């Protein structure tokens, strides 16, 4: 459903239904780039077009995708979150620690609680105290990681119930469970942004805090809630991670924040806030994920992979931005 959602006039500039054409064009530029890439790969590599592989791509990128959805909300409201990695690691460790004695459900609840509370803490520090998102989330990231190391001595937590890998690696029919969870998160994000007053206010606050406040919108509450969702989604991602590795890894997930922000921004969402749609986050995630998969399948030397990835990012976004600029979009 997600990719089918792309061409639909999701509101990157909150123009209600009808999208300003520059935005539309640019969205299509990125979409076109992605489509072209996929087509080339399908033609070039039999392994790539193997459905099993395509499903792998979906499963492998579900984690970052879930994080990216939360990141999208925080970017639209005018911030971002560097603590999602720490939250992911912490929540998966919390889950693992609780699983072993108490079983699945309490474990899941523990994880979600960890994510939600760190997220809300971020929100309060940003909205009420007025610390900027960068310092706030960098601080909580360091803090949470630290507490995690204290709690675990930096050693992984082993001994989880076999069954739990279902979340991370299991399938329902042909579809990876992780991907279904991702899809669920995408739908939730979509509904929030498109159909709820809260979502509308996320755009408003991101577009202009002052105007929103003067219109009687409770800017602080919106901000705090958004970071709450960010933390919650990171925790869900942490659970999926746990489901893939089956061990609680304190040192894991450290690359999530940059990867998730990258996914959103590559998807054409500016960091300035006030605009953007879930389509962008999904598109960016899949684009980066497909590139990584392709590089592996084509056995590109690991020494070359970063360089090529960098080039692809710059190329894709460059194309996008340049045309956006020409069409006076920004």
């Amino acid at each position: 459903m997600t990719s089918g959602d792309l061409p639909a006039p999701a509101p990157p500039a909150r123009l209600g239904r009808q999208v300003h054409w520059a935005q539309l064009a640019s969205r299509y530029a990125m979409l076109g780039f992605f489509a072209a890439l996929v087509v080339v790969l399908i033609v070039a590599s039999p392994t790539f077009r193997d459905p099993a592989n395509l499903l792998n791509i979906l499963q492998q990128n579900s984690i970052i995708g879930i994080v990216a959805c939360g990141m999208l909300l925080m970017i639209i409201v005018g911030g971002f979150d560097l603590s999602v990695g720490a939250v992911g690691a912490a929540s998966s460790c919390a889950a693992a620690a609780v699983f072993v004695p108490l079983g699945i459900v309490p474990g899941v609840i523990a994880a979600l609680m960890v994510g939600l509370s760190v997220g809300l803490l971020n929100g309060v520090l940003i909205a009420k105290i007025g610390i900027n998102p960068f310092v706030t989330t960098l601080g909580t990231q360091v803090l949470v990681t630290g507490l995690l190391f204290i709690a675990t001595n930096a050693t992984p937590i082993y001994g989880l119930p076999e069954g739990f890998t279902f979340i991370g690696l299991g399938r329902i029919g042909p579809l990876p469970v992780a991907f279904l969870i991702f899809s669920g998160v995408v739908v939730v994000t979509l509904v929030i942004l498109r159909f709820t007053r809260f979502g509308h206010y996320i755009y408003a606050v991101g577009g202009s805090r002052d105007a929103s406040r003067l219109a009687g919108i409770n800017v602080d509450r919106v901000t705090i809630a958004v970071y709450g969702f960010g933390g919650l989604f990171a925790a869900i991602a942490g659970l999926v991670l746990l489901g893939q590795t089956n061990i609680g890894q304190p040192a894991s997930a450290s690359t999530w924040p940059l990867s998730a922000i990258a996914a959103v921004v590559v998807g054409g969402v500016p960091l300035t806030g006030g605009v953007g749609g879930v389509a962008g986050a999904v598109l960016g995630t899949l684009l980066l994920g497909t590139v990584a998969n392709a590089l592996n399948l084509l056995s590109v030397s690991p020494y070359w992979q970063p360089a090529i990835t960098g080039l692809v990012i710059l190329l894709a976004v460059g194309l996008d931005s340049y045309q956006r600029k020409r069409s006076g979009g920004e």
Partner: protein
Amino acid sequence: MIDPVGTTASPGAAPPLLAMRQIRKSFAAGEVLHGVDFTLERGQIHALVGQNGAGKSTLMKVLGGVYPDHSGEVSLEGQPIRLSSPGAALDHGIAVIYQDFALVPAFSVADNIALGREPRGGFPGSISHRALRARSAQEAAALGIDVPVGQPVGRLGVAEQQLTEVVKALSRNARILVMDEPTARLSPAERDRLFDTMRRLKQGGVGIVYISHFLEEVFLVADQVTVLRDGNVVATRPAAELDLPSLASLMVGSTLAVLQRETDRRVRPGTAALEIRDFSPARRPSVSLAIQPGEIVGLAGLVGSGRTRLARAIVGDLPSTGDRLVRGGPAPFRSPVDAAAAGILLLPEDRKRDGLVLPSTVASNLSLTALRGALSRRGFVRRGERRRLVTDLVERFRILPPDPDRPVKTLSGGNQQKVLMGRAFGARASVLILDQPTAGVDVGVKAELYGQVREMARDGVAFIIISDDLDELLLLADRIMVMRAGAADQPRPAESFSRAGLLEAITRQVHEVAV
């Protein structure tokens, strides 16, 4: 000297709609409201006037709940209320049109009109975008205001932004409506329509606070007038008891020189300082015009008539076709940078978006354009020179408070406009294009500014002045060019226009189009 009838309600009589008592407000830099009393009755249009920096907007922001840290009591129909936040003020039925707008640029006009009171959708917490668009469009129509409901506000001109604010505020059916210089950026037609609306609301018992620097308008609509000076009330009188000169003198504390056309100044013959031939901003009719050094050409027109577009195209900020000649030579500007290098500067109409560097100080803003010239040597800023220019401009343009090291965003609207003017005048330009240069500037300073313009014209600077204030054009311009829907008449000598004639010329085409 405070009129008892205006403020203290006599016992027995119903308490006033709104009573503000002994309002004080200070900023880091000091107190700016020194115990202001202000009373508003039901169905009253109460004009609030005063020089730039007098405290009008601050007082109204207190009323709007923007400054909960004020002191003094506010009571609504006798009941004391706490204005702890804008939300609280709105809940009390107080709607404010702020001088520097409160719009979300990325949102459509419709979204902005409905901001904070979006229609519910199917399920709790949901929103119906369809209903929202329909309702906003209908609300604008009901007020007879024509705004592009679907457009993002960020791409609108100031006038359209202003109209959006008006619809937004009027559609909240508030008990108290505050309008902070709503007409500063409107052309005559919109003003009249706005005044009709105000009178209608007044019939409905709404209390309206109306702030303006066009004193004629005050007498047109206001029942009651309160004059602020330096954060104190100097008078509260029924409008009927005042006339223009007396009101002006109450404001500035001295009588005003009557503004006259000047007759002695001579336009210099010879090669035009700036000439455009068959020149047209992208997808607009083409315009031709030649301006001599020392000449002042006025551009008159309705909102949307294409004056701003033309101006932005001339300095290369919007794409254009046709020829542009500077002092006889071709000048293909790719950007305002080229124009500035050729001595052609545009003073933008939107001081917040395109004009000022808000986080910077008054000094930085004033010296910004001049830096490329006399203010720097080998890339280094000549700080002494800079200081001197800045203090001179602060003094010449009567910027209040006269503190060059203030962040410019802490200045009053009118004073910000003065900084913008000062910056353009401080740079050694040969052609100045001023788009709505005196918007929000008080009468006293306007006279001053006109003097400055004429002085520079004497020194051979050529001016294009875009203004919705017809009197301004008639007073300043040597020739006036009327624009309609992007097309332009032949420029004619200003003397050949009567005020009525000019107004007719501006609106004519529109009627024909309507037919």
